């Protein structure tokens, strides 16, 4: 999995739709004056991954994540955050059983090599007769994970636009450190506290990664 995009709308101080684009690796810095909304982005990522405690999102109740208005703007009725990830493993699975067969085919029909989409398709259709339209090496599957909360209290999770359960999202991120004891999201002020916690609490960090 690689992170491609984070979109927020109506989440805390991000009343209007905003997005951050990423290219899967590297360092992106987020800067700005005190109180402008930087930590709200970190809260948004924590929330969409399924955070259940309002207190960990620095609020009193979960509704505190919905934009609650300013002097000139009305509060909104909904908060929504989406993460777009690229599933780099995706094309490996379906290919696995066919990959070996395909390799034979390519030998007969032309130049072997990853990433050379057009050539492959021609070769495949010559002998075997199966077509894998998504099979182009350049195409990864995109996965979009979303979470919505309405003022009424109703909340939903979505996977590629279809309503799903929180468990489905947690399964997607299983074993990547993005679970409940996530070591991958360090909130403001928390880095000094990791060592001050009790020895038994530190165990949870290692268990999450085991």
């Amino acid at each position, binding site marked *: 999995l690689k992170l491609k995009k984070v979109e927020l709308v109506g989440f805390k101080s991000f009343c209007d739709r905003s*997005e*951050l684009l990423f290219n899967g*690796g590297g*360092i992106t810095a*987020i800067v700005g004056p005190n109180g402008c909304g930087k930590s709200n982005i970190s809260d948004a990522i924590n929330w969409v991954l399924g955070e259940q405690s309002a207190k960990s999102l620095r609020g009193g109740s979960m509704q505190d994540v919905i934009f609650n208005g300013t002097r000139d703007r009305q509060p909104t009725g909904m908060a929504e955050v989406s993460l777009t990830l690229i599933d780099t493993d995706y094309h490996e699975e379906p290919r696995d059983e066919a990959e070996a067969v395909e390799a034979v085919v390519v030998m007969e029909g032309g130049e072997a090599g990853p990433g050379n989409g057009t050539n492959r398709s021609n070769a495949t259709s010559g002998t075997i007769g199966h077509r894998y339209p998504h099979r182009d090496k350049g195409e990864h599957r995109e996965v979009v994970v979303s979470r919505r909360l309405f003022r009424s209290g109703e909340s939903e999770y979505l996977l590629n636009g279809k309503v799903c359960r929180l468990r489905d999202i947690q399964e997607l991120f299983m074993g990547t450190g993005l679970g409940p004891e996530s070591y*991958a999201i360090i909130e403001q002020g928390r880095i000094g506290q990791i060592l001050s916690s009790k020895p038994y609490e530190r165990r949870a*960090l290692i268990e999450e*990664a085991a």
Partner: protein
Amino acid sequence: SRQQFNEAFEAINVNFQETFRTLFGGGFGMMRLTEAANAADAGIDVIAQPPGKRLQNVLLLSGGEKALTALALLFAIFRHQPSPFCVLDEVDAPLDDSNIGRFTELVRQMSPNTQFIVITHSKKTMEAAPVLYGVTMQEPGISKLVSVKFNGSQPHAAVN
């Protein structure tokens, strides 16, 4: 399972010694399981020895030394089980300039496989990031994102 935990613990401990040495520019750090009747209840003690100092309890470390030790532990876990992304919110606030330098260098080394999102006020950390987003509140109470630097190319307003 206990087997998995022990394997992870051993592997992460090896990583921790390396990341500790990298972030402190020397010294020694390791984890130790605390005594417990039932192995599943054992906690984790952290031993940290900054360069030139005696081995001591992590309680006596300074604010910056504690933050750096915690970062070393975090990155050791990361090396064992990388995440698709990592969000670090002002973790560099307690660090002095030379420790910020070693921190950003280690993040750079780990960033090919992981997207790091680093929230910071430090100019030194900003310089180390190829991509930079600014958050502004020109309209009071409303956050807007502006892309300031994008791998050296032209900035664009990150809104639809």
